């Protein structure tokens, strides 16, 4: 049971990541590429949170309800990391999209293989 859960949770997270990478590597559209990057990040976030999950744990908050009791809590560190990762990912996505807009204004296309003034 646990084995299946392990494989399915991690597997789906990795699969989402791979789908993202696939989009980045094959799609010609710049926005699609950025979407791919963001999917990639989502996959990773899922993976990291899942890694921190502890069966039977509660959210790592010492609310009055749990105060004083000895409770098992899920690992808070991955959550903190994912928090950071999400925000950073958003920042990168925003910058990427503004670059896409600028590229579109300049080249009037958002196909990546038509934008290669700089080469060799």
């Amino acid at each position, binding site marked *: 049971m646990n084995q299946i859960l392990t494989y399915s949770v991690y597997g789906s997270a990795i699969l989402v990541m791979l789908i993202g990478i696939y989009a980045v590597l094959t799609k010609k559209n710049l926005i699609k590429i950025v979407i791919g990057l963001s999917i990639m990040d989502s996959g990773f976030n899922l993976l990291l949170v899942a890694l921190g999950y502890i069966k039977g744990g509660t959210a790592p908050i010492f609310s009055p309800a749990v105060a004083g009791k000895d409770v098992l809590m899920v690992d808070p560190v991955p959550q*903190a990391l994912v928090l950071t990762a999400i925000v950073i990912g958003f920042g990168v996505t925003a910058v990427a*999209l503004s670059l896409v807009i600028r590229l579109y*204004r300049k080249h009037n296309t958002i196909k990546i293989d038509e934008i290669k003034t700089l080469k060799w």
Partner: protein
Amino acid sequence: MKKLVIISLLLVLGYSLMNTFSDIEFGKKREGISSYFLEHSPDDLQVANTVTAIVVSFRGFDTLGEVTVLFLAATAMGTILFRRRSKHTGLNPQRKSPQASRIVQAAGKLLFPAIMILGAYVFIHGHLTPGGGFQGGAIIATGFLLLLISYRQFKVEHKYVTWIESLAGLSFVTIGLLGMILGPHNSFLENFLNVGSLNDLLSGGVIALVYIAVGFKVGAELTGILDTLINIRETGDID
């Protein structure tokens, strides 16, 4: 053909990642620094939300970095889209796109204060309940987003955004530097206030303050980013 190659590459990659992670049993408790956090967050810091304690205190530096990343993203977008911050005031009559419907406008008007309050609540209570500076800030930004969408002539006053984001950022760093002067270990971002008691609003010492600063900062930052993007057509003298 190319796609096939790529897919096979990705399969190899996926296999090796899976191979690595499948050894880690899902949902199993592991040893590590997190137990220390779970122990010290309520005891030393009197912070109920351990994630907040980690984000703000144990790994406060990361948060500073994060806030910086957002600030950086806002600045970067301004640079990339050649946005002139100072010249941009007042309404813009040349706006071509149609107004949003009345319903949306009314809903926006109604929801905006509620969203604002929610956002403020979230970041003020960051050390007690789930949520905190980032979440609250993001919620506030959504509120502004609503206004930006529903009222076409709505303008975010850049002066204020700039002031808020700068002051919030400065207060974050200043709190950190004060920690170097006042804190018991003289280290950056160190708590120098009374930590209060667990599950009080005024607990956690500087953590609450930092998260409020973060909330303002993130809210201003995200609003700025959205505003930059929404208004590029008018201001964007992009080559």
